Each structure stands twice: as C-alpha cells, then as structure tokens.
C-alpha cells in the first residue's frame, strides 16, 4: 500500500479475566482516512478504540500508531485524541471553561488556543457560557468533539460520535470530520448507525465477538453481500408483479408481510438480476417511481457477517 498507515494492528488480543474482548485482531487504517468500526454490542469496538487512545495495553500482538510501535506499557503517541464511552465533560463548568481547562492542561492560553474556533466549528458558540449540566446528549457529543479538536490531533478516535445528534447536529459533525480528513487527519470512529458509516467512511472494520469479520472498502463489502431486498413502487403494480415473476433469479418477498401500500412490491435478488428486472419494467412501459433497498447494503452485509460469526461460535 502506497498510503502510509496511521494504525497498523496485528494479532491483537485483549482479555478481561476470562472474557476475550479482542481475539487476534488485524486492522490497517490509512492516514487521512475516515475508518468506521461496526459490530454488535460487546463485539470489542470500545476496547479496540481504548487501545488506540492508549487507555489499555494489548495482551498479545503488535500495535503501531502514527508510525510508532507501542510497547506493553500504557502509552500513546502524541497527536492522538478522542473519546470512548461518551465525551468526558465536567457538568459544573461551562462549555468554554471545559475547553479552557483542557487548553491550560496542555500549557496553552485558552484565548489563543482556538477555544472559540472549535466551539464555532461544532456550532456551540451560542451556549459557550452555559454550564454543561444543562446540555443535551447531542450537545455533549459536539462539545466532546470540540475538546478533541482543540489538541489538533493527527489521529482522532471517536466512540459513537453521532449518538443523540439531531439532523442538523449530525450534518455539522459530518462536515467537521470530512474537513479533518481532507486536511490529513485520520479518523477512526465506531457507530451502530450504518447510514452514518456509509456517509462518512471509505473503509470499515466489522467486529463480532472480538474477531474481525470484515475489513476493507465499503464497495467491497457491498459486493460481498448476499441477495438484497428492494422496495419497488410502480405505476402498475399488477403488471410489475407479472414482470418480476417472469424475471429469472428474482424472488418476490412474502405477500402477507406488512407493506407501505398495495402498490409496493418487495423483490429479492443479486444486483445483475435486479438490473434485468428494471430493464424489463421499462421495456413493458411501466413507470418506476421508487426502487430502494429495504435494508442498506452495508447493513445487510453487517447483519449477515455478524450473524454468521455468532452462529459459528
């Protein structure tokens, strides 16, 4: 790979007494990339993020962050920032005071350290003087992101940064993360929201029961997916039903299942068969008003991979 790696993990295992939190994990994250981490609860995402932040040490394996190999003692290279299990904020301090205290901790004057700038980036300028005690979860997430930005990180590690965000807040956070990646900062984030990962990440790693079940580009993940279900809304549902039935390798999902309306069909098939179905509908003069996946390709792949892993144990 030509692009330098911000994170290189090989054979990482981490145990908590008899619980195997991570089992022989290997991950590469290219510099300047937004890399997603997905997996069901208890899959080991937070543990892996904790290792990246230097909060814990792997029991086995090697971990290299920003080109620096980490040993068996608690450490992290300079330039790593972020949070796991929610941002760490002090409710008795205002948003500005939280960031100012952090700036002073790093030996910087809050007035010149960019406190106002990062508050502006995450859209919290108006509430800078308010105590964090009264903040919503979404506001806390944005303030946590601001705290991480304050240190001008080269690797930003975020655990569920979209939790509690409203659509406007989510858009703001996405903009900030894209801008960071464009400027060369590597971002590793975990999320349960597949739409967030699809919107943000070039590559994802999927963990299940402490093991990596997939790591690579989103396009590759979608291509590896099994049959997908698509919602089909047309100008003539009865004719569309006939066309779908006549198309090879296209299945119709149980008619008894609940539907948004009688004019909607749910069809199942691989991408080539679905392409053929669309072509036939057009040739038959049937207008296609909606053709969308019931579950996103990433989510479908996620469910397939994690279910396979869990059933295999």
């Amino acid at each position, binding site marked *: 790979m030509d692009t*330098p790696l*911000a994170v290189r993990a090989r054979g990482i295992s981490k145990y*908590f*007494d008899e619980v195997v939190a991570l089992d022989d994990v290997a991950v590469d994250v290219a*510099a300047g990339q937004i890399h997603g981490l997905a997996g069901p609860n208890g899959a080991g995402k*937070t*543990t892996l993020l*904790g*290792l990246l*932040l*230097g*909060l*814990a040490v792997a029991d086995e394996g090697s971990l290299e*962050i*920003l*080109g*620096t190999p980490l040993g068996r003692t*608690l*450490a*992290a*290279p*300079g*330039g*790593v*920032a*972020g*949070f*796991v*299990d*929610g*941002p*760490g*904020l*002090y*409710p*008795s*301090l205002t948003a500005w*005071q939280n960031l100012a*205290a*952090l700036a*002073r*901790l*790093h*030996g910087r004057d809050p007035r010149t350290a960019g406190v106002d700038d990062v508050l502006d980036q995450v859209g919290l300028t108006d509430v800078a003087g308010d105590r964090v005690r009264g903040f919503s979860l979404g506001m806390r997430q944005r303030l946590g992101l601001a*705290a991480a930005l304050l240190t001008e990180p*080269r690797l930003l590690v975020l655990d569920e940064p979209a939790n509690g965000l409203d659509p406007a807040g989510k858009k703001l956070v996405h903009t900030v993360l894209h801008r960071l990646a464009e400027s060369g900062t590597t971002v590793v984030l975990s999320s349960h929201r597949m739409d967030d990962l699809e919107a943000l990440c070039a590559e994802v790693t999927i963990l299940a029961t402490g093991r990596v079940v997939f790591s690579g580009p989103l396009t590759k993940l979608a291509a590896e997916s099994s049959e997908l279900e698509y919602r089909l809304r047309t100008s003539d549902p009865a004719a569309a039903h006939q066309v779908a039935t006549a198309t090879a390798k296209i299945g119709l999902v149980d008619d008894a299942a609940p539907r948004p309306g009688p004019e909607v069909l749910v069809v199942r098939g691989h991408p080539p068969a679905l392409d053929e179905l669309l072509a036939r509908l057009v040739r038959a003069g049937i207008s296609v008003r909606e053709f969308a996946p019931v579950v996103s390709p990433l989510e479908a792949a996620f469910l397939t991979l994690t279910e396979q892993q869990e059933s295999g144990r």
Partner: protein
Amino acid sequence: MTATIARPVPAARAYRFELVKLLAQWRIRLLVLACWIAPAVFVAAVSSQSSLPVDTLFGRWMNATGWAAPLVMLGFAGTYALPLLTSLVAGDVFAAEDRLGTWRHLLVAVRSPRRIFAAKALAGLTGILVLVAGMAVSSIAGGVLAVGSRPLAGLDGHLLTPADAAAKVLLAWLCVLAPTLAFAAIGLLGSVTLGRSPMGLLLPVIVALVMALAQMLPLPVAVRLALPTYAFIAWNGLFTSPAQLGPLLISVGSGLLWMVAATALAYLIFVRRDFTNSGHDGLARRALTAGALPLAGLLAVTIGVIATATPAMGSGIEKDKLERSVATAFGHLYRLQTAQLNRPDVTEAQLAATAACTKGDSLVAAVGPGNDWRCVVSWHLPGIDATGTAIYQLDVTPDGRYVADGDGPKEVNGYFQVHTLTGDVPNPLWQFDGNVELLATTTKG
C-alpha cells in the same frame, strides 16, 4: 509520519486542573464559605450568652477570654466536622470521575495515572487545608473580637498569657492536622476502591465514628494512642504545665503513619486499575480487602510497638495521677479565686494543696474511669494553722478527661458564683475540667 510517545502533562498543570474542577462545585464553595464564616458567628453568639457550653472543654471560659472559643471549636471539629469535611472533599475526589464517567477523558488528557493521582491527592489536601484554616481563623477572630484577648486558664488551672494561649491554640490546630490528613487519606482510599458507591464518600465518617466510639470504651492506653483519632483529644496536653507531650507526639505520629499508609494503598490500587474494564466496580470489594487489611495490620503493629515501649496496657487512670492532677488544678484555680475576691495573693507552693481520692466509696479498686471518684483536697494558708479542705465529685472518662464538681464548703467550691467588688462572677473552683496523662511520662509541674 512517525510520532513520539505523548509526554505526560506536568504535575503542576494537572494539579491546577484538579483545583479548577474542585472549586467549580457548589458544594465545595459553600463549605469554604461556611468554614470561614460560621465559626466566627457561632463563637460570637455563644460568647455573649450567660449560658455557656460547659460540657465542652474550655466552654466554661468562653466569656472570659477569646482564646477559649477556637478550642471549643476544635473539640467539636475533632468529633464531627473534620471527618465530615474530609469525606466531602477527599472522599469524592476520585469517585467524582467515576460518577461523571470522565476517567478515560482524564487519562487521555494527562497521560499519566501517577500524575493524576498526585494532582488529585494534592488538590484534595489543598481543599481540606483551606477548610481547616478557615475554621481556625474564623473561630479565633470571632472569639477575640467578641470577648477580647485575655489570659486563658489551662487544664491544670494555670493561667496562660494571651500570647502563650495564642501560640498553643495554633499549635493545637496544627496537631489535629495529622488525624485530619489520616482521614483524608482514608477518604482517598475509599474513593479509589469504592468508586461511585456512597460508601466511598462516607468511609472517613464511618471510620471516625467507629474510632470515636472506641475512644469511649475502657481500652488499654496502647490501643487508644495507636488510633489516629487520639490526637483529637491529645492536644489537651498542650494546656497543662508542663505540657503532656508524650501522648500528643505518639498520636500525631500515629495519624501521620495512617496518612502515609492509606495514601500508599490508594496509590497502588489506583495505578493498577484497568480503565477499559467496565467490571471495575466488581473489583471494588477485593480492592477494599486489599486496603482494609493492611490498615488493620498497621494498627496491630502500632499497638504492639507502643505497648512494648511504654507500660501502657492498663487504663492509664490511677489514683496517684488523679490526686496530683486535682491538687495541681485546685492550687492554680484557688489563686484565681483569691484574685477575684481581692484577697492577698498566695503562691501554689504556700498552698501546698494535696488531694486524697477514692473510687466507689473505696469498695472498688481506685483505678480506671468512672463517675464515682471522690477527692478531698487539702491546703494551707500562710499564717493559719488550720488546714482547709474541699470535696469534689469527679466524672473521669476513659480518655483521661474529668470534670471536678465542687461539693463544698459553699464558700470555696459549693456555689457557682463568688461575690466580688464588681459583682457576681463565675466561681473557678465550683466546677473545673482537668485531665490525667494516660502515659506516666511527664513529671508534675
């Protein structure tokens, strides 16, 4: 793109960060305000009343001199306020991060558990010192402003000049810092081991209450001195002549040992904690065992050393020591009464006061605490052949303190007031506080 390992934040900055967080809490701000204002208000109010807290040491002197007030406050603080303050400050300094879920953030920001521990311990210490200093300064200011800087009668009745009284009051407050810091360290230990559990916050108060109850039991002197709480009592020895320094030094040393041991245990438990393991709360019980057992071991060793170094396995309250103490106090206070009544001065040597004490009407051995002590004091006046006698009923508590209650004759110690040229004033011989030195190390003054 190789990066170097992040260097930990300097300890001074981490300390400042902890102070900012501590002082941002309303609870701490209110405590600081209360400690710097409430004692002065309380002392000024009580000192101006005719009904004084005579059941508290030095309480009966509160409207005679302003230097009694900080000692009354010190007696109260040692029992209740100081353990409670250490609970609220030191007991919460680590647990607050568990409650807020900010440990990981703090570790990422500071990059050193050791420096976090040092910063938190120092910030807690600073907070406690500010509160204790507030109580001392406020009660001194309240007493001196309300009553004035006048001589103070010590526990053996001798008069301390205002300058001496001031120095000893300050020294007494300094001495109780040792057990206070021991409780602060126990608070740190509880906070580290028990996390967000309320038990962590309450640990110093619970330990202080248990030790205060133990001090009320007829324990051997070695056990009593080995408990860090004895310094809350032993400062009384500064107010006798000569000062009873043996028990005071031992109890201060014991308090400092507890402080070092509890802080070291808290440190060891803290730096071994895995902050990515959500099962930490489950480990708390084991950590508590690891914290509590060594302290119990320290107590046992301290008791052994004191018992070996001093003949201190009895109650320490014996007939001859009590007789010396009562006679000495009577001699000093008689001079005070003589001055009040405008009679010719007489020295303690001329009075040659002696006391003969019995316990339980001589039906029981004359040792140990109890309210069944009875002492007959005898003295001589120059130029008069007859020997004066006065009777006292004594209530002696296991820690060596006693209240001597005058039982006549009325002209000497049987009435609570004496008639003077300027009006009726409290009779110093009617009731007085004293103490028996539990260790027989200080010679009679």
